[in-house]
């Protein structure tokens, strides 16, 4: 009896891979490519604003990794991101477009509750699910999740969404001392 069970178990183990679908492709170059995409993606600002022309930061990272996209078309990232991408990839941008200057990253979307008709169009446009609302109900922006990408502005039929700059008050930073005029600390 025990022997039968044992044989059954062994058979199950041997046949399992055939029933569990094909094994994942573990081609070495694919793995390397996926890792590169992740590393590029980690340098991008994640606003998901599509100003680069791709459907988000990850698709843009994939395009860069394939060598199909230039590295200097990300306005929220600004020159810092271009520099970091250059370091990572060891190539410089072709300068098809001028290096963008970084925009204020503290802008947040704001819905004028008096005007909102609850059409859900902005909810569907938001790439990070930062707008909360149901059909016919007033919608609201979750400030902690909003990246200020502005993709919700265009679909709104009643123009009740605005980008409010400086809503997330920029954290003040100690300036770097200027060696020429520095006084004692």
């Amino acid at each position, binding site marked *: 009896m025990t022997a039968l069970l044992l044989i059954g178990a062994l058979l199950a183990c041997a046949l399992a891979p055939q029933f569990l679908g094909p094994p994942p492709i573990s081609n070495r170059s694919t793995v390397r490519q996926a890792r590169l995409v992740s590393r590029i*993606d980690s340098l*991008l*600002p*994640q*606003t*998901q604003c599509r100003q680069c022309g791709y459907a*988000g*930061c*990850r698709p843009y990272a994939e395009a860069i990794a394939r060598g199909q996209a230039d590295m200097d078309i990300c306005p929220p990232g600004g020159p810092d991101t271009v520099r970091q991408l250059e370091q990572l990839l060891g190539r410089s941008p072709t300068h098809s477009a001028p290096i963008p200057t970084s925009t204020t*990253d503290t802008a947040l979307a*704001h819905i*004028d509750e008096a*005007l909102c*008709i609850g*059409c*859900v*169009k902005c909810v*569907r446009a938001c*790439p*990070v*699910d*930062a707008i909360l609302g149901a*059909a*016919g109900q007033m919608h609201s922006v979750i400030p*902690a*999740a909003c*990246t200020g990408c502005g993709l919700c502005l265009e679909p709104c*039929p*009643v*123009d009740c969404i*605005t980008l409010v700059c400086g809503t997330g008050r920029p*954290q*003040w*930073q*100690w*300036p*770097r*001392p200027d*060696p*020429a*005029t*520095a*006084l*004692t*600390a």
Partner: protein
Amino acid sequence: MTRALHAFPGGLPLDHYMEWTCGEESLLQPLPERIVLPLQQHIGLPATPIVSVRDKVLKGQRIGAASGYVSVSIHASTSGTVTDIGDHPVPHPAGITARCIVIEPDGEDRWCEIKAVDEYMSVDPRRLQEVIRDCGITGLGGAGFPAHVKINEGVENAVDTLIINGVECEPFITCDDRLIQEKAAYVVAGTRMIGHAVQAKHRVIAVESDMPAAYAALARLVGDDIELVQVPARYPAGGEKQLIQVITGKEVPSGGLAIHIGILVQNVATAAAVYRAVTRGEPVISRYVTVAGTVPRPRNLQVLLGTPVADCLRTCGHEPDPRQRIILGGPMMGQHLRSTNVPITKTSNCILVQSEPEPAPELACIRCGNCATVCPVQLLPQQLYLDARAGNYEAARQHHLFDCIECGCCSYVCPSRIPLVQYYRHAKSHIAAEERRRDGADHARSRFQARNDRLRANTEEKPDADAINTAAANSEYVQAAVERSRTRRQARDATPPEAPEPHD
């Protein structure tokens, strides 16, 4: 019983200039014309206003509620009317504004009803913590960390030694010295209360060896339950980690807290505030402030929180002079004030007037190593400086930048007059901002990914869902609203743009 004291590495013997102000009775600063109370006078989240403009408030009334665990309440420092809740200049090195509640005093200075916790020995330590938070007590030594958070950590972890810090190591400052001389009973009773709350095995009150009057005042009151210790006057012996080292010989681990080695440190003014809060229910609405430096009558003042710095200077006979600079805090760690029209807050311990020094240009680092000798945390100041200057923030962090207590010893001894601490502060705030940005990006990335996964799953399950949604979005109801909005927009565009639209 006498305690064997230890030494901390580095440090400086500084002239203290205490005799200017420590011998004279403190003055009551008169009621100002306007009280400006910043919602954030402590480390953590700013308080949430619970009054509105035109409300009448009484002295000691809670006007801002603690908005989280690491946050404390704020209270009206006198009776009057709330005239504004908005942005006003606050003590800040860049002179920025922050949310404040402005009160116009009615001159009556009438207290609201306050309630005491009757017998502190019988109350639950948790209740004591609530009292401390609701009375707005923060560390009154200078850092402004909410006192109840520290005490809560003390209740949850075993506290071996409670140290009440009366070591004012920065030159000129004597506000704690004066407080001890005038309110020694409060300090001692407050020490017993905190000691009871955290069930500390040992209770120590530490003063500096050049504070004989304060020592004598305390020596009359302490019993067997409290040790009174005089620590040698060496800057920065009053820093939390240095004081722990002097008294216990233990070192707080890098990146750790005092409580991790069983020690709780509170300032003497905090202890006195705890006493007042418990026995009378009195919140923190005033503090001792030393006015020193090149003023005609240097003195300690008892100032209502929210009083402008300029008023305190006027009491001491100071005439505004553009050649002088005003420093809030001590000469080593204080910050340069751009305007004296900023309020005294819970953390303002000293106003120092200095004649503007000759602009001293920074020279090249000659690697003399003096900075490393005096560093009380045994860091490598010149290495940190080079890293910060070159923008190698990650390297600076690996050289333990965040263990720097910004005491200023390295800048003080630097023969090239390099403002080292400014470089460290810049590097610290740059790293912190970068971390915040990265956290925000990670958050957005995960939300973007989650949304894409959901959409993919939806289309696999219900391929025609999109069509239904589009139909709903183009329903008559939406069309009517769009029409209304279009006419409104046309009407708006037709009128000449006199007043700017609020949302453009």
